[in-house]
């Protein structure tokens, strides 16, 4: 969450609640929205690392609010993040480790492992379909985020079938 928060602050200085609201407005229900405590903890850590600095803004009718702003080091961190490619193929797939090592040790059954994983993926696909149909599916970023997650799940399921074909 650190870098998305920094990227939001690259647009405008903001306080914690504003950041939470912006994340939710932009990505909709499909994005695992952090709770406000997590956001403030992250902001504190970012401040200790010198990536943001904060300042209390006096409000006449309400308690003061603390507004966060990027430091030059923070701007640099966002720029670096944007320039580097994100995680690609997962050659350290956790499920695959289970699928190979469990049966090798004689403590798990391959078909059960595959079926359990497939059921999980299908349930997730179902949840995404519900989201696509009802809420975030209708806004631009939320809809694309859901579609991406669905395509990944389809690939995961196709690959499970390959594992089933090769290993059973």
């Amino acid at each position, binding site marked *: 969450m650190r870098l998305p928060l920094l990227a939001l602050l690259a647009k405008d200085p903001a306080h914690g609640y504003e950041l939470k609201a912006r994340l939710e407005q932009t990505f909709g229900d499909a994005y*695992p*929205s952090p*709770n406000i405590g*997590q956001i403030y903890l992250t902001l504190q850590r970012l401040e200790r690392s010198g990536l943001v600095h904060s300042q209390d803004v006096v409000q006449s009718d309400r308690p003061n609010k603390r507004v966060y702003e990027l430091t030059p080091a923070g701007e640099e961190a966002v720029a670096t993040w944007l320039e580097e490619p994100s995680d690609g193929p997962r050659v350290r797939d956790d499920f695959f480790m289970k699928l190979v090592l469990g049966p090798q040790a004689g403590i798990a059954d391959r078909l059960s492992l595959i*079926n359990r994983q497939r059921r999980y993926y299908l349930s997730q*696909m179902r949840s995404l*379909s519900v989201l696509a149909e*009802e809420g975030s599916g209708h806004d631009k970023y939320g809809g694309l985020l859901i579609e991406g*997650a669905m395509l990944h799940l389809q690939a995961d399921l196709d690959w499970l079938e390959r594992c089933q*074909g090769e290993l059973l």
Partner: protein
Amino acid sequence: MIRPAASGRLRIADQVTEPGRPLLRSVGLTKAFKTDGGVVHAVRGVDLQVRTGEFVAVMGPSGSGKSTLLHVLGGLEPASSGEIWLDGQRVDALSQAKWAILRRRHIGFVFQFFNLISSMSVADNVEVAALVGGASRRGARARREELLGELGLTAKAQASPAQLSGGEQQRVAVARALAHRPSLLLTDEPTGNLDSSNTAVVLRLLRRSHTGGLAILLVTHDARVASTADRVVNLFDGMIADDTVVRPAPLYPVGASGVLELRD
């Protein structure tokens, strides 16, 4: 159990299915083909049951026998051995002619390629299907108007199938399959040729018909399509490897977001 079709936008999450009595059932079903390379055992002992009003998806790798299973269950190809029961009646032992009549009354089919009659208008395609299914002239016309209205195709009623987009043609194919009010829809990759927005339209339509009491047995490799069913059967090497009820799962562990990333 027949319930009125839901109106308005479909909400998958709201759907509660109350499956009824066994509608389609196979016992020890097998299908083998003779080919130049020898005998291919496409279906190898499948016990499967679809209840009235139930929506079941069959998934599996290509070559797993899922399309063959659907064809045999629908009587489009004879079984090699085993039993098929339709609404309490054993049908695999019936004469082809008798089974054809039962099928016409109870079952609708939708395939990946739309199977429309190209020389007929959209309206006639649907109306003829209702007539063949036993509707009166007046009944067939009313059914045609109802279905085309529901599918947003009223304006295209007089068009020929070739003038329609792929998504529209598939909607007409679904209307044809439903024209005689079957209790069971058998469908093989109904969204196989469609882009994602047309896939959504056809899926919505299937869900709505299902809510209205239609049982659906759907073969697909598309997990998004399969996940809208109540049950997913996984076919592997001509046999059922898994049979599971699909329930939505949380997309991420509750409370975990951000926590991991807090460790710098």
